[in-house]
Structure formats: C-alpha cells, structure tokens
C-alpha cells in the first residue's frame, strides 16, 4: 500500500515539477526522470507486474491516494493561474472523453462532432443566462439536455446505419453547427456570446479566490474543483454503466450487430441510448467550459476540437474508462507546456492518432475484461 502511494506521489511530484520548471536544465531533468520512469516500467516487466498487482490489490487505497493528490494539485500550482486553468481544461476533457468513449469506444457510434455537441452545451448556457436570464447553475443543469435532444432528434434516422456513413454525417453536422453559429443573429455571429455570468453557489461566486488550508488559490481553482467533481462523477457513473448489461449490449452491438439483435438487443434503442448518454457528458463539459471562460464563439467548437476529443479516446484506449482519464491528462497539458508545439497542435493530434492506430490500436491503457464488480 505504501508502495502504491509512494509511486503515485513520485509521479505527481515529477508532473508538477515538469510543469513549473522554468529553466531548461530543470525541465530537462524532470522530463528525463519521467521518461526514465516510463522506460523502467516498459523494459522491466517484473517491476511492472509487481506494481500492477499492488495497484489491483490496494485499489481503494490507490483511488484515495489519487483523489488526495488531485485535490492538492491547485496548491502545488497556486503560483500559476494559467496552469490551474489548463488542469481544469484537462478535467473537462475527462468528462467529455468519457461521453465520447461510450459512443465511439463502447458502442461503435463514430461521433466526429464532439466539439459541436460541446458547443450545443456551451451556447445553451450562454443563451439561457444572457437571453433568458437564468442563473448559471440552472443553465448548467439544463444545457446538456439540449445537446442530448438535438442529437437524438437529428440522428435517430441514421444511428442505425453501418460503417462510415454515420461518421461522415457527424462531420457534416459539426461544420453545419459552426456555420450556423457564425451566421445566426441570436448566437452573436462570429463574436459569439460574451459576459456569461459566472457560477454562484450558496452565495459563493466562482470569481472570488478560495483558500485551502490557509493558502490563497487563484480564482480558477473554483472551477478546478467543480470540474474535478464532475469528472469524478461521470467517470464513476460511466465505469459502472460500462461494467453492466448496458456496456455488454453496446459492445456486442459494436462487434456483431446481427448476433446482438438475435440475442434480443434492440439496435435502435442501444445506439440511441449510447449516443444520448454520451452527448449528456459532452454537453456538460461544454457547458462548464462556457461558464468558466465566460464567453463562447464559433472557433471554440470547431472541427479541430472534435479531433482533440477523438485523440483523447484513441490515445487513452478505446473503450477504456481509465484510459480516457490518462489520455486527457496527457494530451491537454503537453502542447501547453511546449508552446512551440502549440502552433502545430492539430498536426500533432492528427499524427498521434495515426501513429496510435498503427502501432498501439488499443491505446496506452487498453480496456480490461469486464468483471462486473
């Protein structure tokens, strides 16, 4: 158990050091240490199996340790509001990634318009608060359902289709969404929606600076904790759905539609359910994003971001719940850390998808056999 916590702590320390290292030498040192740690695991199978066994045996302790470290992260990053923001973004991508993974990974519903469904959530929050005058928290609860409804109404007729047809239609949908947002009057056109009011819960405004254990944190830490809660809850719920009759039925539909139907699985119901639950998570992520940054505009939800969401799923591991968490935590911060990569971000994501599909199609953390625990 101690070993489990210790290894978690080492990774945490290295990551924080890697983020905060200013001088190239320090950065190189921590980067080198991370690579060395990864290589050690890769090329020392006994160590790897021992560690894996340890984590499996002390699963609860490992999760608790991870939770404590996740809670402590804003403390470690308190000097940098920017990095607190990036960490929050990664958590939003965990939420979105879980939804997308249920669609693509579990059910084989290839949705390449993740950004558009996040945008539906984000724009809904904007319109509900600015035009309808709803409080942010209520808009936040409502917005994901709008993403679900739009998705269900538009896609019911084609969810059943096989092969790449659905994927193509979702790409088209993504572009249409963007064009509409750019041109419609009430969504603010290219300027988008500005000054979305911030979240206010029990009198606490999310723009005020919180303090943890007597240490003042940047205001973004509010959203960090909100996003952590949401990401934790969606991951927990989707893990349980995946390891249940639903996950099994969706996997079977994905792998052999005819066999599934002959076992009593309804194709329409299964795919619609997966699509809707997925869009609920994606819309929620987009809605939280809108409240966090306070404005939404068309480029925030363009095809490039659909690609980012897709790579989170593919890198982490298709159909793998922990894989999505890993994928989001790797993929979002990395280009931010290496700003020179930022320019070529989309190129990088595209390349990463191709390389992964070629050499490690099941992802960094492949889906495990379902044990129904």
């Amino acid at each position, binding site marked *: 158990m101690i070993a489990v916590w210790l290894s978690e702590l080492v990774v945490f320390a290295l990551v924080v050091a890697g983020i905060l290292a200013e001088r190239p030498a320090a950065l190189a040192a921590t980067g080198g240490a991370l690579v060395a740690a990864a290589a050690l695991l890769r090329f020392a199978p006994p160590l790897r199996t021992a560690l894996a066994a340890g984590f499996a045996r002390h699963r609860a302790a490992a999760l608790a340790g991870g939770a404590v470290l996740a809670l402590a992260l804003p403390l470690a990053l308190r000097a940098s509001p920017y990095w607190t923001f990036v960490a929050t973004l990664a958590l939003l991508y965990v939420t979105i990634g879980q939804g997308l993974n249920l669609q693509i990974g579990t059910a084989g519903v290839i949705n390449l318009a993740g950004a558009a469904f996040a945008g539906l959530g984000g724009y809904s929050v904007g319109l509900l608060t600015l035009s309808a005058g709803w409080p942010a928290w209520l808009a936040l609860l409502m917005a994901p359902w709008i993403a679900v409804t739009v998705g269900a109404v538009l896609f019911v007729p084609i969810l059943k289709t096989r092969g790449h047809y659905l994927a193509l239609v979702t790409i088209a949908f993504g572009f249409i969404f963007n064009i509409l947002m750019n041109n419609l009057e009430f969504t603010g056109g290219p300027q988008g929606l500005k000054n979305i009011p911030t979240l206010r819960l029990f009198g606490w405004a999310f723009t005020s600076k919180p303090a943890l254990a007597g240490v003042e944190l940047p205001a973004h830490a509010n959203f960090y904790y909100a996003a952590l809660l949401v990401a934790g809850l969606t991951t927990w*719920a989707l893990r*349980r*759905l995946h*390891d*249940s*009759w*639903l996950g*099994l*039925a969706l*996997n*079977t539909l994905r*792998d*052999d539609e*005819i*066999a*599934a*139907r*002959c*076992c*009593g*699985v*309804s*194709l329409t119901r299964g795919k619609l359910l997966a699509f809707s639950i997925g869009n609920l998570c994606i819309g929620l992520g987009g809605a939280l994003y809108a409240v966090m940054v306070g404005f939404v505009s068309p480029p925030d939800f363009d095809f490039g971001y659909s690609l980012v969401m897709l790579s989170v799923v593919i890198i982490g591991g298709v159909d793998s719940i922990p894989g999505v968490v890993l994928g989001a935590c790797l993929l979002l911060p990395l280009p931010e850390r290496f700003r020179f990569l930022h320019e070529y971000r989309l190129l990088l994501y595209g390349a990463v998808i191709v390389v992964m599909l070629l050499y490690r199609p099941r992802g960094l953390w492949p889906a495990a*056999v*379902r*044990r*129904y*625990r």
Partner: protein
Amino acid sequence: MSAMTAPILETRRLTVRFGGLVALDGVDVAVGPGETLGVIGPNGSGKTTFFNALTGLYTPAAGEIVFGGRRVTGLEAHAIARLGIARTFQASRLCLALSVFDNILIGMHARRTTGLADSVVRRWRFRREMGAALERAAHLLALFSRELPGRGFEPVGQLPQIDRRRVEICRALAAGPTLLLLDEPSAGMNPEETAELMRDLQIVRAEMPGLSVIIIEHDMFVIEGVSGRVVAFNYGRKIAEGSFAAVAAHEEVRQAYLGTERARA
C-alpha cells in the same frame, strides 16, 4: 410429432425473395415441443434463409410464421428473440475480443431485470443479478467441458474452434429459449470434433427435454444421430419430409444431392 400436440412453431407458405431469386418458396414446416427437426439440402437450397426468416433477419415476401400460437411474421429480430427463439450461426458470430462469459451473458440480455439506475446507484441489485447470471453461464459451460468455466474471463478468441462453437451454443441456451436453431454446427470440423459435437448435442437434449430444436446439417451422421424427423430443401422448396431413412431414400433428395455432387466434380 404426434398429431395431437400443438406445434411450437409453424410456417405457412413461407416465401423469401431477393430480387428475382426465390430463396424460399412456399415452405410449410411444423415443429412440436421437445422435438428435434433436421434440415438437409444442397448448398444454396435456402436452409440458412429459412433460419434468417424465422429469426426476423429477413422479412418474408409472403406466408406466415406462427410461434407459440402467435403470429410473428414481420417482427424485428430482437423482438422475436425475446419471444424465445435462439440460434447459432453457420459462420461463428462470437465477439472475439470479449470474454467467454460476456459472450454468454449477452444471451441473457432479454431476461435481465435490473436497469440503468441499478447499474449505477443501486449497484447491489445489479451485483446480485449478475452474480447469478455468471453462475448460470459457468453452469452452461460445465455441461460441455470441465475446463471451460475456469476460462470464463479469457477472450473467446483464445479458445479452439470446438470450444467457440460450444460457447455459441451456450449463448443461445442462456436465453432460456423454447426453440433452438442450429445452423450447421459441425461446419469446418474434423471427424473427431464432429463426434464431440454430437455428444454435446445429446447432452443438450438430455438436459433440456422440453426444448424444440431445428438443426441444419450437411453431415448425415449428425442428422441421423440427433434428429427424429427430417425435412429436405432444394431450390427453396421443401421436397421431402419424414424419418431420416425415408428422406435419405427419397428420389428427389437423391437427385438433388447427386446434382450438386456432379456440379462440384
């Protein structure tokens, strides 16, 4: 089947067309409770099409299917499955990446009583049901082999051919069907494996005496060994019906098989 018992399944003038091709042509077949019906016929004679029509994968152009006293013609495949028709496929249709247990548990999909809320928040209910389901899956596997239950959490793709066929039969049985359709279970097997399969089928027969079975087979030893009554198809039509000996001796059946043998040669 005695004339007294009502059939569990009855087709009347069942017809399936693919464009101009009549793949099934006015077929009348009846199966009684607990009966095993053998279906033979040369390649392309419409045997699999018959199963696909029964299970709702193909929509009949004419005729009707009555199952358990209910007209099921035109129902969707999943709805028919829920009424109690389970099947295996000529070319295996297992999900090779999923575990052996997963491939059997999906057979119990229609019998589940716990829903999404039970899966997430009232997890204990789901765990209780799933525990029983896993036990049932292991029990079904144990009918055929002593080692298989222990390999339940391995991907089914790691099993040898004969065991995969067994898993597929277990999946069909897991649904608790009243009618089981087996589409050439011995396809691609060597004589030893076929003998094992025969034994497996006899186990199924002994364990579930009330279950009605329709079995398509090319292997005449299997047909003779397991089925009471046999029907023969040719060009989508039923050309003979009766005991194995009678059908095998039937002139048109001999012609049909001779014809294909010649065509192959």
